[in-house]
């Protein structure tokens, strides 16, 4: 069990900055994120784009902002549980929260801060009616272990790097048959990988079907065929053991909607006094919260984090008085 003072769900910019503000009050933090790296939207969607409205940075790349935040919070040695989704929140007999991830990792803390942004980044699922009935029965949205596909027939869909890279990997002596289906003849992935895929197709080592899209799935208990719509040749059917549609990630609110929080339009309602939710001890900051006048901006999330930790401190230490001290006075930060 991981014990901390403030358990932060979401390692986007707002969750990261919370560590700093909490650290100034000598509170320890632990962050959970379903993504393998910190940074939230800044890392996942636009790492190479410049942001212009971070105070004192006339321009900073979103990826660099994440790096600077990591540097700024390093003295407070936050803990991280990455690549796991916060799933279940319970309370123990001491009134502390126990949070369990989808992989079963347990965390314990008196305070939870939800800085979950637009939600968990999850694979985009094609809008095919009976698709869910074949999930984990031949349809997978991520490849966890390539060995799983040994000597199997696999169809991959998509035009980005993950589709190309897995096609290449599985074609090299893993799967018995690999088919790549893509909507157009060109690919947005890395030029080297594109060339490799074209070479494999040329050599007959994979089936490359472009100008086409998987539009239907069928089978018995398990998937056994895909219906593919080709732009010029019409419908065709492909026999397969697996289909891996790789269409990128998109954020979903996910398990947070089941934690008895007041939610309106996919955002958690908070009191702007301290960004507390309707559940005492649980706060929400950044893109995930809503209140009259809310703006989904990094700057605003930083402000919310700062006020929120003051309130969290008073919940943990009701008898202690907090006096605001400038960082210029306290000197170099650290626990």
């Amino acid at each position, binding site marked *: 069990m991981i014990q901390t003072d403030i358990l932060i769900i979401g390692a986007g910019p707002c969750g990261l900055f919370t560590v700093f503000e909490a650290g100034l009050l000598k509170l320890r933090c632990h962050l959970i994120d379903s993504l393998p790296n910190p940074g939230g939207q800044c890392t996942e*969607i*636009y790492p190479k*784009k410049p942001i212009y409205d971070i105070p004192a940075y006339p321009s900073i790349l979103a990826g660099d902002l994440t790096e600077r935040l990591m540097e700024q919070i390093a003295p407070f040695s936050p803990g991280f549980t990455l690549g796991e989704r916060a799933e279940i929140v319970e309370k123990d007999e001491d009134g502390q929260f126990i949070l369990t991830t989808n992989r079963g990792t347990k965390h314990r803390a008196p305070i939870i801060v939800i800085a979950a942004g*637009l939600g968990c980044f999850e694979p*985009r*699922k*094609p*809008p*095919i009616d009976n*698709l*869910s009935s074949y999930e984990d029965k031949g349809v997978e949205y991520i490849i966890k272990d390539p060995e799983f596909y040994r000597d199997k027939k696999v169809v991959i869909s*998509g*035009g*980005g790097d993950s589709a190309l890279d897995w096609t290449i990997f599985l074609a090299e002596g893993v799967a018995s048959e690999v088919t790549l289906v*893509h*909507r*157009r003849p060109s*690919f*947005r992935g890395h030029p080297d990988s594109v060339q490799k895929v074209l070479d494999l197709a040329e050599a007959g080592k994979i089936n490359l079907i472009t100008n086409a*899209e998987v*539009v239907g799935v069928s089978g018995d208990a398990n998937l056994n065929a895909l219906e593919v719509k080709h732009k010029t040749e019409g419908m065709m059917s492909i026999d397969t053991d697996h289909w891996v549609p790789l*269409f*990128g990630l*998109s*954020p979903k609110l996910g398990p947070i909607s089941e934690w008895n929080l007041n939610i309106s339009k996919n955002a958690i309602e908070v009191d702007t006094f301290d960004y507390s939710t309707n559940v005492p001890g649980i706060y929400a900051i950044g893109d995930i919260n809503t209140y009259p006048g809310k703006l989904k901006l990094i700057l605003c999330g930083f402000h919310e984090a700062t006020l929120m930790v003051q309130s969290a401190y008073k919940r943990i230490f009701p008898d202690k008085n907090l006096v605001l001290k400038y960082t210029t006075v306290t000197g170099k930060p650290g626990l």
Partner: protein
Amino acid sequence: MDDMIKVFVIDRDEKRHMLDAPTDMNMNMMELCKSYELPVEGTCGGMAMCASCHMYVQSSHDISERSEDEEDMLDEAFFVEDNSRLGCQIKLTSDLDGLEVKLAPIGE
């Protein structure tokens, strides 16, 4: 009004909405749909970086061609057709009066 056009949006329940759209506010179709609370996510804020604003242009309006970024991003959309566009890349201008679009299906 001079700076207003009418556009039509068919939602995922086949309901047709008539929207008044300003042409002097540098708005795009994704933003317009959001301002009318139609179900368009617009996760990336209109930078052709999320594919959450995929729609089909059903009228014969002459819209600037898809950029390379838009073409790349459409790879992450589903059921992409020749008339597929990212709504955020359709700038609302006076020549789009009467434009009709249909929101593309999204997975669960």
